[in-house]
């Protein structure tokens, strides 16, 4: 079996190179000795013989090299040749090379960037030792309910059983802090068990991390997160050893967390970390772990000992806590805290602890995958465009290829050469793409708008192995997509025919060309339609705050917690500020409120007591009815006029609504609709359960979303601030401005500082910014979709133009004959237009189903638009038809200018 011999021979060369080499030496030595012998026989001189034989043999090393590499070099050589040849060919048509490389490079870059973000946010595991061993511990009630929180006593009991393999973290805060000369109020902290960092196996960026010893001695030491170290001190190295003040105690920064480990939650990076006992003893008034149930427990289930660790934890929990023995007494009534048969559950947190409703993966996952689909479509369009260019080149080069084939180049070899060209374009594009992606995302990360700014740590991508592998795979896929078909088609030539005719017949590549353009049109339709859908979504979301003219509404939040203002003194301070703000230039009216819509701050909710609904069993209401609860907002007179919230009926609060006057209330439409169906609520009395019905309804306010623009309109009651005993810590001023709200912000800051210097200004921002923050995802996505669809439509238009122009040129003779036979210009123009619109129509026919699919995939990102809303589709179709007409304008005019005589004579 000779092929087996051959295979064995090749394999041996490959696998046992040393042995093969030795044998080769022996064989050559044998050959040489025989040659020497012969020479000596002839001349009788042995030393001369050796010299002559060696000379005759030639360079032994180079022969060996020839023999050894014969197999491998053939294709490596050819590949090198092909690539050199390709780069020469590309250099000869620089416009094609630049256009192709640039379009592929940009779109590969966009893909690399989006994938990089997805990888960092969605795929990457925590930067700790063996992240897959890490689990979060849950408290389960055996009936499907579970809670992630435990008490410190329960943790201590579990720790006795599981030792160093179980640990916890929890959130804490310092009311005031001083870091590097700057004061902060309500600074978020993380309190951890001293064993957490050793268990995770995190290597510090500087200094050391917290240890069980720090915990035991309640040492006044803290660890900073990497970003915090940079923000406060410039670098981790500079931060280590520094001192900071937390609630009057001096803490030493002993070390800094590494850049890649930001904490166990993606959403809440560790900024300042202290141990549990430190937090308990020095920051006591903010957090009391003794009876807090807010410890998040994590454990390491070591490979090979998972079962054992689990069982010892289970056993310990059953012994100490299964009946809620170690829970604070007032906690025994809720969900999983209630059962008598509680047990532990474990969940994989190798990618971090999920943050429920605020989970960035939930908030941005769909957005990112939608973006991924978008950039993939753009890449596909770019690929088809380059493919089309290659096809055109193949047509132009058919003569050259025919010559080469007739000179004996095999078809496979020529296909390989053409593919080498595509490969070169894709490879250069991929490298440029990665560079662009790294550079672009770094710039983007610092300028993320609104809510997207929380993505900052994930947006700046690094060229890590995952990203590079992905990009390389994309580049290869690109080569295949845009290279193979043109290469095969280009070589499907009959040298004899093509050499004789000079130019190929026009019909050959026409149908494929037009198919590709139609496909591009279909993809462009998907993108244009999604711009429309996202635009409608944005309009719907923005209308959620009513008619506020948010760019002329300035919102200032202040806080007096932890300041020198005594409890009960807040009102006087806020009144001073209100007075002062009225004098700020550019501010036309001022009002005060506890909270403005979209300022993410809780406000109190109480159960309504409304005539006719006394006996409604709150527990029986559907959850989405939110019981009979309503949010309560205290406002000053003029609030509705100033903010533009507006009233449907009745009046707003005036300076007459003071203590002693009848308590007044303004309800919103949601309450009026639900509880006063058709009746006039004005003058009715309502109240809160258990408090009597002392509040007289004086007005009905328009519905305004409070925290979530996508939620149904919340029930809201407005009360007069003057009729409340005092204000809370936090207060908000809303100001109508004459010019842009942003331009009045500095004056407002100064006025607040002058009226009440001790009050902490949390923020001063135009309402428009709060709105943009809320709709940041949709806004960003629409902006990207606009860019993508412009590119897509533009590319498709250029492609269509090219095809039509080619079509007209290659049919000059036919057009000339038609015109000679009496066709007038209009008919010629309409013939070309028809051709163009036929391609567009095919694209639309293909694109509409695609776009419907895409919009139902967008689903959760849309709001108030059904994926089947026709408006955006009609617009998209109109855009494409317009594109088709424009792309055909010049070719059809050229067609109409064909001079029959010249055209016919020309061939």
């Amino acid at each position, binding site marked *: 079996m000779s092929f087996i011999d051959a295979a064995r021979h090749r394999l041996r060369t490959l696998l046992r190179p040393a042995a093969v080499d030795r044998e080769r030496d022996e064989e050559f030595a*044998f050959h040489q000795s025989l040659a020497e012998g012969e020479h000596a026989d002839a001349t009788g001189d042995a030393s001369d013989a050796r010299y002559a034989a060696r000379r005759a043999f030639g360079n032994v090393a180079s022969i060996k090299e020839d023999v050894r590499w014969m197999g491998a070099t053939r294709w490596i050589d050819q590949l090198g040749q092909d690539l050199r040849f390709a780069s020469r060919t590309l250099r000869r048509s620089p416009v094609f090379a630049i256009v192709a490389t640039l379009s592929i490079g940009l779109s590969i870059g966009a893909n690399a960037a989006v994938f990089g973000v997805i990888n960092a946010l969605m795929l990457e595991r925590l930067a700790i030792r063996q992240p897959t061993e890490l689990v979060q511990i849950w408290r389960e009630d055996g009936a499907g309910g579970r809670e992630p929180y435990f008490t410190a006593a329960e943790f201590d009991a579990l720790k006795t059983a599981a030792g160093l393999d179980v640990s916890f973290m929890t959130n804490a805060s310092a009311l005031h802090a001083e870091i590097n000369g700057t004061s902060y109020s309500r600074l978020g902290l993380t309190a951890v068990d001293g064993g957490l960092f050793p268990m995770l196996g995190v290597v510090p960026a500087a200094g050391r991390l917290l240890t069980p010893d720090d915990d035991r001695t309640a040492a006044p030491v803290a660890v900073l997160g990497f970003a915090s170290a940079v923000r406060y001190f410039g670098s981790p190295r500079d931060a280590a050893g520094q001192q900071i003040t937390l609630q009057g105690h001096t803490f030493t920064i002993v070390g800094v967390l590494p850049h890649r480990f930001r904490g166990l939650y993606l959403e809440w990076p560790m900024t300042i970390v202290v141990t549990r006992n430190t937090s308990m003893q020095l920051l006591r008034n903010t957090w009391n772990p003794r009876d807090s149930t807010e410890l998040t427990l994590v454990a390491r289930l070591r490979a090979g000992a998972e079962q054992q660790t689990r069982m010892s934890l289970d056993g310990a929990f059953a012994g100490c806590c299964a009946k809620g023995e170690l829970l604070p007494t007032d906690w025994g009534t809720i969900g999983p805290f209630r059962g008598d048969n509680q047990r532990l559950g474990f969940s994989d947190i190798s990618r971090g602890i999920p943050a429920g409703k605020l989970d960035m993966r939930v908030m941005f996952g769909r957005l990112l995958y939608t973006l991924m689909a978008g950039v993939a479509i753009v890449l596909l369009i770019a690929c088809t465009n380059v493919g089309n260019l290659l096809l055109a080149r193949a047509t132009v080069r058919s003569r050259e290829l025919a010559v080469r084939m007739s000179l004996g180049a095999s078809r496979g070899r020529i296909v390989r050469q053409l593919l080498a060209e595509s490969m070169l374009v894709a490879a250069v594009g991929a490298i440029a793409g990665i560079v662009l992606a790294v550079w672009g995302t770094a710039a983007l990360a610092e300028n993320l708008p609104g809510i997207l700014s929380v993505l900052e740590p994930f947006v700046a991508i690094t060229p890590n192995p995952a990203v590079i592998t992905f990009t390389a795979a994309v580049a290869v896929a690109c080569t295949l997509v845009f290279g193979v078909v043109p290469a095969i088609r280009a070589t499907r030539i009959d040298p004899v025919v093509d050499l004789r005719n000079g130019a190929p017949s026009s019909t050959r590549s026409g149908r494929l060309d037009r198919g590709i353009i139609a496909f591009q049109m279909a993809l462009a339709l998907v993108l244009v339609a999604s711009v429309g859908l996202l635009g409608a979504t944005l309009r719907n979301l923005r209308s959620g705050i009513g008619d506020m003219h948010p760019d002329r509404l300035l919102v200032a939040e202040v806080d007096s917690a932890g300041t020198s203002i005594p409890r009960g003194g807040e009102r006087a301070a806020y009144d001073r500020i209100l007075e002062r703000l009225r004098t700020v230039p550019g501010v036309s009216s001022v009002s005060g409120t506890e909270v403005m819509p979209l300022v993410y701050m809780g406000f109190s909710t109480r159960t309504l007591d409304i005539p006719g609904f006394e006996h409604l069993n709150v527990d029986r209401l559907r959850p989405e009815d939110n019981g009979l609860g309503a949010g309560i907002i205290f406002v000053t007179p003029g609030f509705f006029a100033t903010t533009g919230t507006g009233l449907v009926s009745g009046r707003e609060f005036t300076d007459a609504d003071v203590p002693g006057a009848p308590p007044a209330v303004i309800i919103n439409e949601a309450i009026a609709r639900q509880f006063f169906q058709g009746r006039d609520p004005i003058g009715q009395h309502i109240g809160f359960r258990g408090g009597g019905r002392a509040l007289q309804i004086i007005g009905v306010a328009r519905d305004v979303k409070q925290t979530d623009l996508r939620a149904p309109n919340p029930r809201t009651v407005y009360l007069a601030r003057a009729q409340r005993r005092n204000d809370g810590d936090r207060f908000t001023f809303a100001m109508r401005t004459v010019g842009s709200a942003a331009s009045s912000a500095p004056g407002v800051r100064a006025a607040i500082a002058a009226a009440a210097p001790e009050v902490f200004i949390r923020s001063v921002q135009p309402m428009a910014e709060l709105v943009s923050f809320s709709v940041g995802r949709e806004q960003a996505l629409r902006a990207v979709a606009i860019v993508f669809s412009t590119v897509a439509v533009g590319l498709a238009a250029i492609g269509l133009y090219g095809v039509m122009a080619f079509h007209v040129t290659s049919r000059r003779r036919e057009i000339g004959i038609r015109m000679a036979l009496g066709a007038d210009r209009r008919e010629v123009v309409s013939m070309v237009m028809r051709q163009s619109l036929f391609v567009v129509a095919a694209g639309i026919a293909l694109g509409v189903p695609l776009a419907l699919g895409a919009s139902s995939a967008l689903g959760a990102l849309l709001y108030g638009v059904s994926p089947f809303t026709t408006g955006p589709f009609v617009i998209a179709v109109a855009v494409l038809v317009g594109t088709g007409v424009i792309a055909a304008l010049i070719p059809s005019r050229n067609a109409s200018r064909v001079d029959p005589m010249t055209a016919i004579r020309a061939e």
Partner: protein
Amino acid sequence: MATLLPGTLEMLILRTLTIERMHGYAIAQHIARVSQNALLIEKGSLYPALERLQRQGWVTSRWSESATGRRARYYSITASGRRALGEEVSAFQAMNEAVARVLDPEPEKS
């Protein structure tokens, strides 16, 4: 010394090996002797050619003792090598005749 056309050396080696199995030196010697020193095979061509033939499975090799008692690699032709040789030889002869006709054309009858 004549320059060999590509592929011809392989054909000569295969033909030589149909006589008996030989080591490389013997192959070169045989070709030189039979061609009356018109074809002197460079070792730099011989061994790469043998390697190519082995990779195609037309030739196999085995180490055994030579007449002088030293170990030598003996090459022998395989069945597929013989088939290939047949095809090559007829192609070569057809080519030869064609070349001969070009070089020494018979007068065309018109």
